[in-house]
């Protein structure tokens, strides 16, 4: 076990835990924002730099501060480590910088983007960005590309978080999805628009934090906050598929099917393309009940039922350490 202090709160975590996960165990107020780390994907994280934190004491044995800010998602804790996240002016400054970089070439056309309302970049800029842009250069644009019949890629919105690449690498077979070109010309590619055709490819839609990868069966059917999310499951024939999903209803119609996302916006279990794209009848599913949506989310704004009483808002398991 290692004892770490993050923003003044102490917690004991197993050895090998990352700073990010230790902070998540304390709770959402302390956890750094993430745009590329994904708990379900190996080797994810390290790219976006939004989760940078300041280590003011390296460990019990060597209490020197680390010279640079570190990516909390890729740095493991040491016993006696002291970390500053929200309490560090350096971190705030660097994070605002990262948000500015991520938005530099982003079209900011949220009103016409399908991801609006469930976009992590929107949340991130709202929480950590400036409200004024300092650039008037033309932004980088790309043509839209269809990845098979069901998925659309619009690179213009991509923040190159590599999540879809890791998904393609780790949970679909026969990888044909990667990054070509370099620097700010880099783009996600399925080797010259070859369709990725396998059972789990649809998950790239769920992992994409922005509106770069979207579900063509859902595109522009409805704003997400006008839909009603309902938890449901079915006995999926595909062994690797959990069959646990969220159905997004408008009236009686299932507009789309997605995996279930946890508190951090990361899917709990991946689902197969059959569940996602082909099972759009209520009769296909066993309904569990309305999905709880964080009351801070815009999706809950127009909700048919007030799901979350403010008091039920629960921190992750905290082990309080009494001095």
């Amino acid at each position, binding site marked *: 076990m290692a004892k770490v202090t993050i923003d003044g709160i102490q917690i004991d975590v197993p050895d090998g835990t990352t700073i990010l996960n230790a902070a998540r165990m304390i709770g959402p107020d302390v956890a750094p924002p993430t745009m590329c780390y994904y708990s379900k994907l190996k080797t994810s994280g390290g790219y976006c*730099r939004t989760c940078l934190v300041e280590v003011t004491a390296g460990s019990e044995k060597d209490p020197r501060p680390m010279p640079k800010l570190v990516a909390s998602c890729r740095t493991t804790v040491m016993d006696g480590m002291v970390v500053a996240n929200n309490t560090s002016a350096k971190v705030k400054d660097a994070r605002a*910088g*990262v948000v500015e970089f991520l938005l530099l070439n982003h079209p900011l056309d949220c009103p016409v983007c399908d991801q609006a309302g469930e976009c992590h970049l929107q949340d991130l800029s709202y929480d950590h960005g400036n409200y004024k842009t*300092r650039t008037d250069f033309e932004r980088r644009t790309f043509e839209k590309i269809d990845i098979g019949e069901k998925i659309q890629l619009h690179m213009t919105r991509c923040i190159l978080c590599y999540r879809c690449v890791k998904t393609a690498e780790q949970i679909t077979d026969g990888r044909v999805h990667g990054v070509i070109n*370099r*620097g700010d010309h880099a783009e996600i590619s399925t080797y010259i628009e070859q369709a990725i055709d396998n059972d789990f490819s649809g998950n790239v839609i769920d992992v994409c934090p922005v509106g770069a990868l979207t579900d063509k069966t859902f595109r522009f059917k409805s704003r997400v906050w006008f839909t009603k999310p309902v938890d449901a499951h079915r006995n999926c024939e595909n062994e690797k598929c959990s069959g646990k999903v969220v159905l997004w209803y408008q009236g009686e119609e299932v507009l789309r099917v997605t995996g279930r996302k946890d508190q951090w916006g990361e899917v709990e279990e991946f689902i197969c393309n059959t569940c996602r794209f082909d099972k759009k009848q209520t009769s296909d599913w066993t309904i569990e009940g309305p999905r709880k949506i964080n009351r801070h989310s815009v999706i809950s704004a127009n909700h048919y039922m007030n799901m979350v009483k403010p008091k039920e808002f629960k921190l992750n398991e905290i082990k309080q350490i009494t001095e």
Partner: protein
Amino acid sequence: MARKILLEHIDVPGINTYDVYRSKGGYASVEKALKTMNPQDVVEEVKKSGLRGRGGAGFPTGMKWSFLAKPEGVPSYLVCNADESEPGTFKDRYLMEYLPHLLIEGMITSSYALGANTSYIYIRGEYFYLVRILEKAISEAYANGWLGKNILGTNYSLDLYVHPGAGAYICGEETALLESLEGKRGNPRIKPPFPAIAGLYGCPTVVNNVETIAAVVPIINMTGDEYAKIGIGRSAGTKLISASGHIKKPGVYEIEMGITVEDFIYSDEYCGGILNDKKLKAVVAGGSSVPILPADLILTTANGEKRLMSYESLADGGFATGTMLGSGGFIVMDESTSIVQNLHTFARFYHHESCGQCSPCREGTGWMEKIIHKILDGHGTLEDIDLLWDIQRKIEGNTICPLGDAAAWPVASAIRHFRHEFEEFVKNPSAQREVKYYFHCNNIDTAAAYSSI
């Protein structure tokens, strides 16, 4: 008198061939190491010599070697970084072109020290003609029993391969190099783990620059203690400097560390003074990444001492008034040079070469280039200069690999020392644009052009 160690026999005709190289005492270090020393002794000698990495960071080589993990049953690798792409640096090319056997000899001795039975020279793609030179030299070494199975009848075996890159600067960063060598996209890895623990194919690996590996040869021949006496303080030995820009005699020079910068620029033995006897304006002392310094600060440190060609002296004063020895790419600029224009060239390079993995470098390098271009084009504002400063500040230290820093430092130092030139471009756009931009592109002497209009 200049002390030549690496380039001792550079003027001997045919030194690039095996027979001549051998007749001048070539491969003696391999004989000495394999026959009279065990690997640990070789590492010790390199430690004693005080040799520091010549690839840019100046990390003590002996220490790096001793960090190499040695788990049972797992191979370890030595990889030579011959990706030399830092603008202003061309010393490795010189070494490989004229003394290919020196590098191969160094590779054998170093591989023996590290217990590596397979080693690679990862060479910059544009150096394709050197691939042929090296491969010819390697086949000569095989033919004469210096490579292959049971070298010199000992039970040490080594295979050596040359692997050309595909022309990306980022593949010079050691972990990107390893990715590329493995056949993947050359993206830097997130460290830790460091290559000494998990490098090539996940095995313990040492990555060293060409010049570092070549320097192992004289160290073993003359002993580490003797080598440590050359140079000054913690800057032991000699260093190859690639001198370019407005000097009378550009080229690759081997210097003993500790000579003064003034000597290096003005003495006939080295650069021979400024071209057309103009005034010195600024120097980039260690390749495009290191901070640029104005004439007064490159010749003397902030506290008035003469600046020396050594790791410590060049870094004296930190980034406020100092710079770095870096890879030894010494770029001299005379009074007619536009700092902003030069910076634009550098910024364009880093923008082009960013791998795009992390957001500050991917987006920031392009943004900086655009702003500098805007200023150069006469459309800049004074706020743009501050913005530029703020962008570089937000890149530096916040990226995965040091390319982000390398892109930020030239911008920071140009503004720090030459802010007035940026302001000139803003305040007097048309004159600046016509003269500097046009004449530069056409290689016309700007100062003369100024006086004629």
